[in-house]
Structures are given as structure tokens and as C-alpha cells.
């Protein structure tokens, strides 16, 4: 005989009651939830350079720019991770590091001020620029209405760990406040409120917290940052620090429940190391070269097409047989220097072109057309009836020539000067305006064509005429 509908209903109700009873009892004595590990945890630091911490060695004087550091009593015992351009806080003022002279000496770009000169005055180079901590992790459990808490290691001295100066064993709070904490964005199970920042006091940990409402969630990637306006100050080297080896610090990330108990936790490492100063000394130098130029060159215009091949040693005009033509020739001068103040090139002739190299007879230096042109002042020289020896210039690379052949008449002219004549005054070539090339900055391969021009009268005594042109290249001081 089967059960009636009424009996089925009573039995079902009884079963439900018993099940609900045991469930209620189980809720009265809940089982403990096991702590899990947050995963994929890391702290990415925007600036992983250790701060610099040292002090003056011996009493310095006001205005002094050369700084000697204490090499035994402070975290930094040498200048190895100081950099030119660093802002060094010395005593009560900020200075700019100029150059690093040696392992215990560097210079400032301005002199020490009064009050910053005593022995053992602290020197700090703070590393807080871009020192933003980006802390990310993945949740492990459902933790309802909880919080994310970050513990950052700090010096246990309540004053030192938040005075804005680097410590050798932790991060300085450096005036970081709640506004400098950016909590994770809201996501399923998490509705975050504004973060908090708490000074370590004597606990040894600065604490940053982001509370949220919601059920929490598992396997959720969260990320928060510390550092907006103010950033934590990176530590100075640890007492046991070996240069070139990173100091590592442990950041603790916790997921707290509503009762501030830790549910999930993980440690992340952050490592800091000295900056690496890469330096190379580029030696100053000056180089000067002369090159011969082939015949047919027109660097000083087609009206001054060169007639002969020149060499590094000579400008061989050869046998002059046409007394109704200019004889033109060219050489090329090139200068490179990385000296700060640049260079200049001057020239002089030992004497006018003399027969057999003697004083007389000679081919005079040109006076130019409407002259006289001199070794300082150039003039046009295109008239065939004007005899003599002179030169002009044309920039090849750069703008270093004192003048150019086409300064006055771009296509038809030939602006020329006399050569400074040593025998007519050994100082002619040193006169202002007598230089042929100059530049006040470093140059790389500035070059100029020197265009020689010779015109000989039909009455000139026959023979070979010589002189010596000397070029002098010197750096400017």
C-alpha cells in the first residue's frame, strides 16, 4: 500500500527540518578559514637607485666648492654613486654636484653657504624622483568588507624614518600622506575607498591601507601605488652593503578581513642598487691638414679655375709664359678640434716671390683693382693689367673663412688679399683680420679652399721665383 499525498508532505517537511537544524548547528560553531597566499605579488619601484648619505670630512669654508667626504662613518664611504647634476642637500641648503674628482672628493657648482661648513655636516642626495611603488598581486580568497594593507620597511627610530633624509635600513616616509596612495580600481567584489598612510613610529613598518566593501573575490588582480606628490625616499646603502650588489627589502602585502585580521598574505622583494656612473674622458685635441687640389677646380669661381695641381708642400705655378692671364691654384685646409674655445689658422709668406728665392728681383704682392688691398683688407682683383701675387678663400665645410672670393660680386669677382709678409713686419700675420680661418667653438672638419692667384708682367725678369707660405694652426685659449 502506497503513502498518501499527506504522508509524503509530512515526511518531506521532517527531512527539511532535520537538515536545517544541522545546518544551523554547524553555523553556531563555524570551522576556521585557512590563510591562503596572495599570488603574482610584486613591487615595481620607479627609481631603484639608492640614496646617497655621507658627511663633510673636516671643516670646510664658506664659498668652498671642493667637497671632501667622510670615508668611514656614514653609509656612503666614497663618491661612486654621486653623479654630476645631482642635488646634494648639505646642512641646510641644496647644492648641485659639479664634477666627481676622485673617490672622496667632488665639486659643487656653487660655494658652501654659512652654516653648512662644519665637520660632519650631513650630505644627502635623496632618491625620491620617480620613486613610485606600484604594488600588484592576485587575491586568493573571498574576504568580505576587508582591506589591503602594505607594510614598507622603515627605520625603527620615529624621528629618523620620516625626516625627509635617507636612512640606511629602510624607506623614509618623506611626508607621504593618504593623498599619495592610489587604491586599486573597483572591480567585482571590491569597492575601494580612499587609502591611508601611517608613519612607522617605532614599529619598523610604514603602513598603507586601502579598505573596501563587498564580498571580495578570488583570483582578482589588484594594483595600488604609493607616491603621487610625495614619494617614499629610497634607503641609503645598508651598513653591510657591497657596492654593485643590490640591497633588498621585503614589502608585505596583506588582505585583511573586517576585523583587521590577516586572511591572505605575501611578501614581495624590492631591490635597490647604486646608479652606475658611466664616464669617459674625451681628450681635447686639435688637428690640421693641408691637401693638394687638382687642376681644373673652380672652388673660387669659374674665373679662377685652377691651372695646376698643388701638393701638400707646394703650389707649383710652373713656367709662366702667358703674361696676359691669371695663374690660379688651390689648396684645401681642414681643421677639427674639440677644444672649448675653438681655433684659428693664420698664414704668412717669408717674403714676396723672389727670383731664385732671393730678395730681388721679385714679383710683388698684388695691390688688387682699386686697392690697395692689404693682408687685412681684401679688394676685388679681376683686372688683368694688375700684376702680383695674392689669395682668396672659399668655405668648403663650415663658415670659418675670414672672407670669401665672392663676398662682393658673387659670380664674376675675385676678392683677394695680400699675404702677410714676414720680412716686412713679422707681426703682420698676427694682426686682427689677418687670420684666414677661425671659430670660437669646437668644430669637426671645417675646411676652406685657399685660392692662390699669380699674374706676371711681360717685363718681369726671367727665372724661377720662390717663396714659402707658412700656415699656423692654434687653439684659442
Amino acid at each position, binding site marked *: 500500500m502506497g503513502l498518501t499525498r499527506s504522508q509524503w508532505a509530512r515526511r518531506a517537511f521532517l527531512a527539511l527540518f532535520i537538515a536545517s537544524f544541522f545546518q544551523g548547528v554547524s553555523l553556531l560553531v563555524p570551522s576556521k578559514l585557512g590563510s591562503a597566499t596572495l599570488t603574482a605579488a610584486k613591487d615595481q619601484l620607479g627609481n631603484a637607485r639608492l640614496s646617497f648619505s655621507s658627511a663633510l670630512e673636516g671643516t670646510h669654508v664658506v664659498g668652498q666648492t671642493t667637497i671632501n667626504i667622510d670615508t668611514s662613518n656614514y653609509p656612503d664611504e666614497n663618491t661612486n654613486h654621486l653623479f654630476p647634476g645631482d642635488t646634494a642637500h648639505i646642512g641646510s641648503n641644496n647644492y648641485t654636484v659639479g664634477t666627481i674628482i676622485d673617490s672622496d672628493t667632488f665639486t659643487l657648482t656653487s660655494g658652501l653657504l654659512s652654516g653648512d661648513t662644519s665637520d660632519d655636516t650631513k650630505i644627502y642626495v635623496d632618491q625620491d624622483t620617480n620613486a613610485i611603488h606600484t604594488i600588484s598581486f592576485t587575491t586568493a580568497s573571498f574576504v568580505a568588507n576587508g582591506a589591503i594593507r602594505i607594510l614598507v620597511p622603515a627605520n625603527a627610530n620615529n624621528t629618523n624614518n620620516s625626516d625627509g633624509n635617507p636612512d640606511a635600513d629602510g624607506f623614509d616616509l618623506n611626508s607621504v600622506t593618504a593623498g599619495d596612495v592610489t587604491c586599486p580600481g573597483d572591480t567585482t567584489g571590491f569597492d575601494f575607498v580612499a587609502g591611508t598612510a601611517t608613519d612607522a613610529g617605532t614599529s619598523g613598518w610604514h603602513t598603507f591601507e586601502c579598505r573596501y566593501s563587498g564580498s571580495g573575490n578570488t583570483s582578482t588582480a589588484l594594483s595600488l601605488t604609493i607616491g603621487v606628490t610625495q614619494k617614499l625616499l629610497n634607503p641609503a646603502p645598508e651598513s653591510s652593503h657591497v657596492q654593485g650588489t643590490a640591497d633588498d627589502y621585503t614589502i608585505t602585502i596583506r588582505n585583511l578581513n573586517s576585523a583587521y585580521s590577516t586572511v591572505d598574505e605575501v611578501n614581495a622583494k624590492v631591490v635597490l642598487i647604486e646608479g652606475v656612473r658611466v664616464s669617459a674622458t674625451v681628450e681635447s685635441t686639435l688637428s690640421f691638414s*693641408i691637401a693638394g687640389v687638382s687642376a681644373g677646380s673652380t672652388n673660387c669661381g669659374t674665373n679662377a679655375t685652377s691651372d695646376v695641381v698643388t*701638393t*701638400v708642400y707646394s703650389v707649383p705655378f710652373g713656367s709662366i709664359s702667358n703674361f696676359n692671364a691669371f695663374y690660379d691654384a688651390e689648396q684645401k685646409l681642414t681643421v677639427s678640434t674639440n677644444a*672649448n*674655445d675653438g681655433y684659428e689658422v693664420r698664414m704668412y709668406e717669408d717674403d714676396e716671390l723672389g727670383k731664385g728665392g732671393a730678395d730681388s728681383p721679385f714679383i710683388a704682392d698684388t695691390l688688387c683693382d682699386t686697392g690697395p688691398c692689404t693682408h687685412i683688407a681684401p679688394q676685388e682683383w679681376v683686372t688683368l693689367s694688375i700684376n702680383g701675387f695674392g689669395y682668396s678663400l672659399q668655405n668648403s665645410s663650415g663658415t670659418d673663412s675670414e672672407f670669401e672670393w665672392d663676398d662682393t660680386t658673387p659670380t664674376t669677382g675675385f676678392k683677394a688679399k695680400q699675404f702677410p709678409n714676414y720680412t716686412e713686419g713679422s707681426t703682420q700675420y698676427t694682426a*686682427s683680420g689677418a687670420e684666414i680661418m677661425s671659430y670660437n667653438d669646437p668644430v669637426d672638419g671645417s675646411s676652406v679652399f685657399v685660392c692662390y692667384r699669380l699674374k706676371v708682367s711681360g717685363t718681369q725678369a726671367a727665372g724661377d721665383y720662390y717663396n*714659402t707660405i707658412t700656415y*699656423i694652426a692654434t687653439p*684659442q685659449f
Partner: protein
Amino acid sequence: MKKIKYLLIAFILLVFFPQTVRAQSLGLGIYPPLLEVTIMPGKTLTQVYHLTNSGEVNLTMTSAIVAFEPSDETGGVKIIENTEKLQPLQFGFLNADLRLGQTFSLPTGKTQEVVLIIKVPETAPEKDYYAILLFQTSPLANLGGQSASQTQTKIGSPLLISVSRTGEPFRKASIEEFSLKNCAKLCIIDSFSPPQWLVRIKNSGHSFFKPLGKITLQGWLNQTETLDLLPQNILSDSTREIQCQKEDQVVSCQSQSKFLIGPFKAKLEFGLDDFSNDYQKEIQFIALPFKLGFGLLILVIILGLIKSKLVLDRD
């Protein structure tokens, strides 16, 4: 017959396919290009110099020490051939096989190292001595029976030697000129023309120095701009026009501002081999938009003329 054929081919190759003739070059490099030193009387200084033949011809060189003085206000050198000005300093080479003034060969691609020694006698007056170590090529002896100029090359490296017992020689400067270029007395500039300063500093002390300082431009709305002076050597008893620098590049001392208006103050301040405001000078000027105003005036006049023409035509 075969021989003639080869000769013919060789002749054709030589005549119609000549080899390119490349002009040779003579190249010299010297390091260091400038030596600055302060030395006590009775002491000796040595400095290594490198002279490199970077050209394509072997060279025969000689060396010399000559005096120099500034040739202008831009750092140029004026060589003084006699060495009286360098007395009583003694110069020489420490090389075992080379004396100062002795000829030596410098093959292409090679570097000659010379060790210059400078002895400063105990009795040497405390002042500056400016010298140049010159290396020069020897010209060719024979030009081969033709009219020609032969060329000779010298390359030098200045030495700025300050003799001082204390290491702190007497340094003194005066500001010869701190003015706006293109501005005589009443300094009113156009707002769109950035002002450019002329800075001339005289060294009236006994030793060369570098001025370390800046030009600060300040406007009536407290807007400021700073130009750093280029630390250039100023030799004793000379004046030098100083340039400015920006990010390690040499620049003229000119404001980078595109537009200025109103009264401005420009202050020059520097120290000698040290950043300080030991030396100061201030000038004032006014920036007004002349060109813009003039343009607007012309525009108004043209518009006025057009308007009157239209009125006349209508009447």
C-alpha cells in the same frame, strides 16, 4: 707581332683609362691643445704632448717655444717670436732622444710623444707667462726649377702658466661693458626682438681666470630668465668678450624669450674661477611692441583711406 699587340693594348689602356690621381694630404694633430697651470717658483712641471701625423706623407718636424699675447677679444693668439716675455722660465724636452728645437721625423700614421719640462726658478717673478709649443714641418729643399710657393705648416698648443707662491695669485676683474647690443643710451627694444647682451670683462690682476656666473633677466611681472656665462680664460692685462652657454653648448648671450613687454632688469654677476656675485652690474631696458604697433597703424591708415575712397565714390 704579338708583342706589338700587347704594347698597343697597354698604350690604349694608359691613354684612354688613366688612373685617378688623388691629391695627398698633410695632417697634424696635437694633444693637449691647451695647458693651464699654476706653479710655485722653484718647482718643475712636466707635461706629455702627443703630435700625430694623420696625413699621407712622412714629415720632418721641428719644435719651438714662443711667447704669445691675446690678439683680440675672442681668444685669438698673437705669436711673439722672441721669448723675452718668458724669461726666466726654462723650457725643454725630457725625451732621451729629442731636444727642444731638434729636427725629428714623423712618419705617416705615427705619433711622437714629447715630454715638455718647464722649470720655474726660485727667483721667477710671480705673474703669468703665456707660451706656445709649436711644431712645424720642414719645407721641401728643392722645387724643381719652376716658379712656386712652397708651403709649411705649424701647429701649436698654448700654455697658460701662472707663477704664484701661494697658489692663489692676485686676481682682479672689472666689467668693461655690460650692455644691450644695438642699444645706445635709451634702451627701448622691440618686444619681438630678444635682447642680446654684450659682456666684456677686463682682467686687471696678475693671473688669468675664468668668470663663473650668469646673466639674470627679470621683468616687472617677476618673470625671470637666466643665461650662464661661458667660463672662458681671460689673460692678465686683457679684455675678453664673454659668450654664454646652454646645455654645454656655446651660445650668444641672447634671451630665449619670444616676446617681452614692459620694463626689465638684466643683472650680470660672476666670480673669478668661482661661482659668486663678487662682480655685479645691472642694466634696465623697456620692451615695447613697436613693429606690431607700426603695422597696426599702417593697417588703420589703409583702412581709413579705403573707407574715405568708398565714401567719396558713393557721394
